[in-house]
């Protein structure tokens, strides 16, 4: 976190030589303050560049990113102030308060949290309705609504509220530990997500649930067992299902299948399972989902639905409208034998029924169902074979379908929008609703294009079931394990045997998904539509006909897959861009950045260029940076021997350049002058830079070819004619020199460049670092210029790095004459860019 920028590598051994052997302690002290100040200034600029880049909204980041970057910005601004204050003999203490004010504002923006205003740890469904999502999560709130307001059958049970979650997790030391672990997540590296997820879940599972919560849950369980047993004695063999019901499931987002649900939980495992459900907030896919959707972790909370276990004979999912065609007034029902997970997890292909609003079946597609899930006697679930006679039998009778369709109509009517419903039928034939939520449509109202079969390309898959439309092209990548997900390459087409909500981890990277099994009503289907990934399921053959690495074009509108690239379909491709803009995390970043990035103090000569007018961290850093030079110039007054240390460089250059000599940087000692001419400079690197900076060829109205070919060709290609040399250049520039050392910094308005160089006979110690920051990151022209500079530097053998509008370059361990040549060229480059700056700022 405190990684030092290489830019100011004030090295170990050169510090003595560059600072001179006989400088007074006060000067050395001030100089070390100044170095730290510059070091933090560079770090601050880095953070700012990074923020600006994230503000473009094309990269994924989480709240821990926003937090750590803001803290870093505050830290370096603070360190700058401290060093200026030390440097000046404590003349700038008011700046501390101004920084603290901005820091408090930033903290306030970052700290906003939802208030949980409920005191009960447990609530019965009779006391819950749809308005209570903040207390019991979306799933519970809807179950309460269905039970108490709509009057449809749900299993008996209770909800463990978010108050319980708050005292277990949020208000404990646990949460701090979790937060600090989260800091290390790199959104672009699924490996880090996996490791940190494992750590966090382990922390939660091994923590103790407060006794008060444990007692309340077990008491509610006993009551439930008492209510459901036929006799007076509570039936302690009662099994329950414990299902996640998270808060923060914004109505816009589905969170489909992201959190844990456990069926058939016996009494002795209830508390452990509670912790597991809470821990599922931090599964890799849940973390990835929230990152991609820009959801703040502060806004999530886990409530749990505890329902009497329904030993279902048949279970399934029902959509009150067709998600792929909302205009159709039909209900879609999918069903499997046994327990529900197999209906949504994509393990087997369920029966599918299309039903009219009147309850009449319009069409049915009966699949072969050879396995089913059932409860094990000692808890947990197990897969067993389905009796041969039932393999190809429909799971649902006409009566079942009519009742289900009736429920679907009621639910849609009550909520006023299409619903996605989970249901189960027990051995007595009773139908229960297990969940109902808004159905996420695939751009409702928009119909899919009808694409013909294109000849001339090998057709690998003729007919799969479309769950999310679109066209995607890329190399095939088979996923059969979590490991495969971690290694999933950007831009590939995902091929898998089963559909699974785990695939959300790579939905940003994949161009299309094709699976053997799965169905339109599964969790993955919901996620694929949400992430706009073209997806075909139930192809039966995808994993066998599409080989690893094979390039394929997926036409998910028509359920076809072609081998190779099909140019005719390119126009239908979904770009897969996923802007962070409009997400909650983005808007926090925006607000925080408004306190950090903008620069209002532009003109050091203006009377407003003063501490009281600083309203952003950038203002503070700009001001501190400017004043630090002023303070360094006062040095000559303070140093006991009154030796001249700072001079204005005089002469013919249109540059306000001041020179601070650290020792042996000038040809003559004890100059009693305020200004000196360039020929008095003895500093090797500064002389070389000045040679370029003063090069007459560049002070004309056009560029004339000089020695470096590539340099000029790029210039000609990218730049317009510079203004006349008579133009006054921007702000003051400063050069800090010794015989072998140079630090040169100049600024015009927003643009800022630094050259730092050491140039001696010891080849290994020689280096040049150059950095240039070109202006706001959203300005295309300025970015283009930064890239141009980077190209020039690259062609000069510099190692360069471009981030947003900032380029940093390094050239090291070269012979003295090579260093001099490069400095000469950089001098010319600077002259040119300064002219450009003048032109552009006008």
């Amino acid at each position: 976190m405190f990684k030092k920028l290489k830019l100011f590598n004030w090295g170990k051994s050169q510090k003595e030589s560059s600072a001179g052997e006989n400088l007074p302690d006060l000067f050395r002290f001030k100089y070390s303050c100044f170095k730290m100040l510059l070091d933090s200034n560079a770090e601050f600029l880095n953070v700012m560049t990074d923020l600006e880049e994230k503000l473009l909204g094309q990269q994924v980041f989480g709240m821990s990113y926003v937090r750590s970057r803001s803290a870093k910005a505050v830290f370096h601004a603070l360190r700058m102030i401290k060093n200026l204050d030390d440097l000046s003999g404590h003349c700038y203490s008011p700046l501390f308060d101004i920084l603290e004010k901005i820091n408090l504002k930033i903290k306030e923006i970052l700290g906003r949290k939802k208030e949980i205003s409920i005191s009960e740890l447990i609530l019965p469904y009779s006391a819950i309705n749809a308005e209570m999502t903040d207390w019991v999560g979306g799933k519970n709130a809807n179950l309460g609504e269905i039970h108490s307001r709509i009057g449809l059958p749900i299993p008996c049970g209770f909800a463990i509220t978010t108050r319980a979650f708050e005292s277990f997790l949020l208000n404990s030391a646990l949460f701090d530990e979790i937060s600090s672990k989260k800091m290390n997540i790199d959104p672009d590296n699924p490996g880090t997500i996996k490791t940190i997820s494992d750590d966090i879940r382990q922390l939660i599972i091994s923590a103790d649930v407060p006794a008060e919560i444990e007692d309340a849950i077990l008491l509610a369980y006993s009551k439930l067992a008492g209510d459901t047993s036929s006799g007076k004695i509570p039936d302690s063999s009662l099994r329950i299902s414990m299902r996640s019901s998270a808060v923060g499931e914004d109505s816009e987002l589905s969170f489909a299948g992201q959190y844990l649900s456990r069926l058939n939980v016996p009494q002795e495992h209830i508390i452990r399972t509670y912790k597991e459900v809470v821990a599922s907030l931090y599964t890799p896919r849940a973390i990835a989902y929230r990152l991609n959707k820009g959801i703040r972790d502060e806004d999530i909370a886990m409530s749990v639905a505890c329902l009497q276990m329904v030993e279902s004979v048949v279970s399934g999912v029902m959509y009150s409208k067709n998600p792929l065609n909302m205009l159709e007034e039909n209900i879609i029902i999918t069903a499997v034998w046994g327990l529900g997970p197999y209906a949504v997890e994509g393990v087997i292909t369920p029966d599918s029924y299309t039903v009219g609003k009147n309850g009449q079946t319009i069409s049915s597609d009966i699949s072969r169902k050879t396995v089913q899930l059932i409860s094990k006697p000692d808890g947990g679930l197990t897969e067993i074979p389905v009796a041969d006679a039932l393999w190809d039998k429909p799971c649902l009778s006409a009566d079942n379908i009519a009742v289900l369709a009736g429920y679907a109509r009621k639910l849609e009517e009550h909520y006023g929008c299409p619903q996605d419903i989970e249901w189960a039928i027990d051995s007595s034939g009773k139908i229960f609703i297990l969940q109902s939520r808004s159905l996420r449509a695939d751009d409702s109202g928009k119909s899919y294009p009808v694409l013909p079969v294109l000849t001339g390309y090998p057709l690998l898959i003729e007919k799969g079931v479309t769950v999310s439309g679109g066209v995607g092209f890329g190399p095939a990548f088979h996923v059969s394990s979590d490991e495969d997900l971690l290694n999933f390459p950007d831009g590939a087409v995902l091929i898998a045997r089963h559909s699974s909500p785990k695939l959300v981890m790579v939905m940003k990277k994949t161009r299309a998904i094709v699976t053997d099994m799965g169905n339109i009503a599964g969790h993955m289907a919901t996620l694929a539509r949400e992430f706009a990934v073209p997806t075909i399921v139930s192809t039966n053959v995808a994993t066998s006909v599409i080989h690893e690495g094979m390039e394929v074009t997926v036409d998910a509108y028509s359920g076809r897959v072609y081998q190779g690239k099909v140019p005719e379909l390119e126009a239908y491709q979904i770009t897969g861009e996923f802007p962070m803009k409009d997400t909650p995390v983005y808007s926090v970043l925006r607000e925080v950045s408004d306190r950090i990035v903008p620069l209002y103090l532009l003109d050091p000569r203006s009377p407003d260029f003063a501490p009281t007018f600083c309203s952003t961290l950038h203002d503070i850093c700009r001001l501190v940076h400017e004043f630090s030079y002023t303070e360094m110039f006062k040095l000559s007054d303070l140093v006991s021997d009154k030796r001249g240390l700072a001079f204005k460089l005089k002469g013919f250059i249109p540059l306000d350049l001041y020179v601070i000599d650290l020792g042996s940087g000038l040809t003559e000692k004890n100059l009693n002058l305020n200004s000196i001419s360039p020929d008095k400079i003895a500093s090797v690197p500064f002389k070389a830079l000045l040679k370029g900076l003063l090069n007459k060829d560049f002070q004309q109205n056009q560029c004339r070819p000089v020695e470096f070919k590539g340099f000029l060709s790029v210039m000609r290609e990218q730049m317009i004619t510079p203004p006349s040399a008579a133009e006054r250049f921007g702000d003051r520039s400063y050069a800090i020199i010794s015989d072998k050392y140079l630090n040169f910094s100049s600024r015009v308005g927003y643009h800022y460049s630094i050259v730092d160089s050491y140039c001696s006979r010891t080849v290994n110690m020689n280096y040049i670092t150059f950095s240039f920051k070109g202006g706001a990151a959203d300005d295309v022209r300025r970015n283009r210029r930064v890239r141009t500079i980077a190209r020039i530097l690259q062609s000069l053998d510099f190692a360069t790095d471009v981030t947003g509008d900032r380029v940093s370059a390094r050239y090291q361990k070269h012979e003295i004459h090579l260093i001099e040549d490069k400095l000469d060229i950089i001098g010319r480059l600077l002259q040119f860019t300064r002219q450009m700056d003048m032109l552009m700022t006008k």
Partner: protein
Amino acid sequence: MEKSDMQIIRLLLVDDEDDFRTTLANRLTRRNLDVTDAGSGEEAIEIIGQKSFDVAIVDIKMPGMDGIETLRRIRKIDPLLEVILLTGHASVEAGIEGIKSGAYDYVIKPCNVNDLMVKVEDAFRRRMIEKGRAQENRECSKS
């Protein structure tokens, strides 16, 4: 003030990691520093009560009294004792608190002894200057 180079800097090294502390103490002693080491914040405070120091190096993350608290107490006892914080993966927040509480600067762990020496010398110089300033109590010139 050439003298400062001759003067032996009295350094207090506070870190709970025994191996790291002993190794670093040895290396700094070899560079002519007068090094005393302490395995905890509590121990450090006790030692400061008995002997005076110029510079302290304090690890931020320690069990019991943490680095920031140790820093605050040290500065209370001797406001001119310069403290350099050692940070591992501690949060930047701790760094902010550190500077607010008067730390000289920070060094990242594991650290290069040369870098650390530069910081120690700079910190010592600051102590000398702040001492001088305190004596003169001179009005600072407004810019």
